[in-house]
């Protein structure tokens, strides 16, 4: 017993160090996270440095990128760089809230269904499948249309509430394969409760999988939020990258050839989501020795 307790922390430390060793040498992971971090810092610091409110009308409308307005201005003279850095904040926020809520619900449903099995699994699985089939955006359209005042946080909340089913399904399948392992049997025999087994035995053994699920949910939430913004159901106040695209479309930036209005927000979203996907592949390689190239 004593020897077991002595070796365990050291072993865990070793696993962590090995993962870190491969993580810093993985180009995909580093490049992906690098892009996300740069954009995150830009979103956090940019608004402080640039100053001013993003939706203020300026004096020089429709001007292309210049030294004064780095990314040009809109039809109303709003500075697009300022909108972009503020929009990044909203986009990250909606990803964290939406992805976070979806991950929590997905984990709860997936763990309980996968571990308990039987009737509980049957009911939860049915619920998951039903919500999985309903087209998410259509539901979000109805909900947001009836909300008089919309904010980024509420948008993220509803995205989280509708996005979780596929995560729940994936986590349930993983839990299924873990619950008949010996160490889980051992924990059960030693009298641990369901929650303790799930949180101490099952979850840590698939922590990398859970983290990757969260990353995918994060990216998905950003994409859905941008679609909602674009249809005109974005936050009623403030800016987001999706809202910038919507404004550009609504005020015919395309026909007027104002490429500096619609290129940056879309590029921002693509960069964040694409970098997350690439980082995810990198993470997969770090945690799964079979996939490593070297």
């Amino acid at each position, binding site marked *: 017993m004593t020897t077991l307790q002595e070796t365990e922390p050291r072993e865990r430390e070793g696993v962590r160090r090995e993962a870190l060793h491969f993580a810093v040498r993985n180009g995909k992971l580093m490049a992906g996270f690098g892009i996300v971090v740069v954009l995150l810092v830009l979103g956090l610091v940019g608004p402080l440095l640039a100053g001013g409110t993003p939706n203020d009308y300026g004096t020089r409308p429709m001007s292309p990128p210049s030294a004064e307005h780095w990314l040009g201005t809109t039809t109303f003279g709003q500075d697009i760089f300022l909108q972009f850095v503020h929009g990044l904040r909203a986009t990250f926020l909606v990803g964290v809230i939406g992805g976070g809520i979806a991950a929590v619900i997905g984990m709860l449903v997936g763990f309980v269904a996968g571990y308990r099995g039987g009737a509980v699994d049957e009911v939860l*699985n*049915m619920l998951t*499948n*039903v*919500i*999985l*089939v*309903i*087209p*998410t*955006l*259509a*539901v979000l*359209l*109805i*909900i947001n*249309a*009836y*909300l*008089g005042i919309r904010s980024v946080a509420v948008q993220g909340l509803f995205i989280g509430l509708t996005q979780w089913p*596929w995560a729940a399904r994936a986590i349930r399948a993983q839990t299924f394969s873990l619950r008949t392992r010996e160490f889980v049997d051992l924990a059960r025999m030693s009298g641990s409760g369901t929650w303790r087994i799930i949180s101490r035995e099952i979850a840590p053994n698939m922590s990398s999988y859970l983290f990757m699920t969260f990353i995918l949910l994060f*990216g998905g939430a950003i*994409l*859905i939020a*941008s*679609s909602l913004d*674009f*249809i*005109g*159901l974005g936050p009623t106040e403030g800016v987001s990258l*999706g809202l910038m*695209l919507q404004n*550009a*479309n609504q005020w015919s930036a*395309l*026909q007027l*050839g104002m*490429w500096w209005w*619609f*290129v940056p*927000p*879309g*590029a921002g*979203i*693509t*960069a*964040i*989501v*694409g*970098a*997350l*996907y*690439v980082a995810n592949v990198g993470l997969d390689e770090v945690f799964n020795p*079979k996939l490593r190239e070297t």
Partner: protein
Amino acid sequence: MRRYFSRKLLIYGLTFFVAVTVNWLIPRFMPGDPVAGMVARANVAQPEAVEAMRAYYNDLFGFDQPLWQQYVNFWGAMFRGDFGISIWLFPTPVSTVINGAVPYTLGLIIPSVLLSWVVGNRFGAYAARRKLLDNTVLPVGYVLTAMPYMWLAVLLAWALGVIAGLFPVAGGYSFSMRPNWSWTFVLDLLHHWTLPFLSLFLVALGGWAIGMRNMIIYELESDYSNYLSALGAPARLIRRYAFRNAVLPQITGLALQLGVLVAGALVTEIVFAYPGLGSLILKAIQNQDFFLLQGTFLFIVLGVLIANFIIDIVYVVVDPRTRAGMAGAQA
């Protein structure tokens, strides 16, 4: 097989029930009063007139009845095909408005989804385990899947429409034409259809290619592939077996992606002002036309359910294990 289908049908039935119930619940239990909103929009000053209007609307929508009665009425009206009357195109019934838009959306979404699925799978299968192709297909695929649908649509419209002038960037057909079945009109229709189709096709393509590539690599590492290659089977043959196995999860993936694909079609239509359901939704939101919005919602849900069921049937045809009543596709 009967078990498989009855289970699927149960799920779809439940889903439809939940969707209709949500559709009924949201307007009634959301903060805010739609009737008050409609009365306010009418801009009437006298209190008596406001009261009369409120009573009229309450009576029209049956808000004065008990809740369960309203719920039953809602289902009844739906089965009669009565989705209410559009406010934006008053007094056209919502079902008529939607029927006019559905062909455009279907004409856009069915070819783009099927083609991107087929082409993406081919690309992915071909790129797997081929260093040079893999290094090009994979990054391009990731950029494509990460793109918001409307952004690629805007970029295409800008590059091929506005700058190159090859394609029109708005509408389903030229404004100078009336819909008819002449060749010039059909050609015009196709001309307007090309760009929205292309952007939907491209965004979806990346995801399928990546998925297929990963599946093929997984299959090529499995025992039967190793066994075949140990026997000296040609690589082409092994790949063909791997492809047939790898296609099954991709069919399931198609069913799972339907919601995202529909969402993509809606925003793409908005970019191109294409006269399908997407543009209808935009108009409904701009004009606070909740009947139209809710009718469109039900149509989309119904369409996705039908598509899911068709995919289930295809799966049974493709995978003999489901026919034999063995595992295979999970619900």
